[in-house]
């Protein structure tokens, strides 16, 4: 199943790892800030309406 990567194996794996880590980090940070702002806003709205 695992493909034969030959002498360039490390190169290919590294490139994939870098990409996955970077986009994963970006997505995680985006989600985290989204959650934070959503919670803050909900608290504010609740206080305004309640």
């Amino acid at each position, binding site marked *: 199943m695992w*493909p034969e*990567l030959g002498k360039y194996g490390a190169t290919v794996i590294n490139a994939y790892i870098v990409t996955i880590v*970077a*986009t994963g980090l970006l997505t995680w940070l*985006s989600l985290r*800030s*989204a959650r934070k702002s959503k919670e803050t806003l909900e608290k*504010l709205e609740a206080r305004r309406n309640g």
Partner: protein
Amino acid sequence: MSIWEFANPVRFMRFSGKLLPYFSVSAALLIVTGLIWGFFFTPEADQFGSTVKIIYIHVPTAMLAINAWVMMFVASLIWLIRRHHVSALAAKAAAPIGAVMTVVAILTGAIWGQPMWGTYWAWDPRLTSFLVLFIFYLGYMALWTAIEEEDKAADLTSVLAMVGTVFAVLSRYAVNFWNQGLHQGASLSLDKEEHVADVYYLPLLVAIGGFVLLFIALLLLRTRTEIRNRRIRALQAREAR
């Protein structure tokens, strides 16, 4: 109904909230499909060996790195002309995504260059241009954070996006001139189109589609965050009065 209806933040929130899950799921599906297909089920190329598999990540991220800036340029223009807040905030939200894509494109390019050129970094016009683009992203984001009044920040970053676009393009050609002028550039490049045969083309297309959808999903998510932050600050300012 005109497209500008969505420039209203409230309407944008409703509509983007509905779309976001679809974009997220399809982005994940396409990226996973494209990358698995590319990584496991495509043959090696004569010239590149297994490093050809890097195109499935390098090409989409490089495309997004440039197109995110183009999108910021258009969004900034819309803000300057029609003064739709969502447009300015979308440009702000796109910058970090574009910057990360640029970094990934540079890193994957450098990692690929190591076995191909014998060095991680060659002042290849393409790599160099991406480095320049990255600096433009940094400056753009830094200007956003430096100005406290949001509308003023939107105005000024838009001007920077205009000027930056012109000079990013100029730099691209200048860098070409410079590299050829000084020494023969590395002629081997990862994303030269003639190297892409059908076997690689289809999974590449899927991966590109996946990354574009990922960009849209992240853009919607981050724009929503920016809109919420604006509302938070506006509400807090009103309470403080």
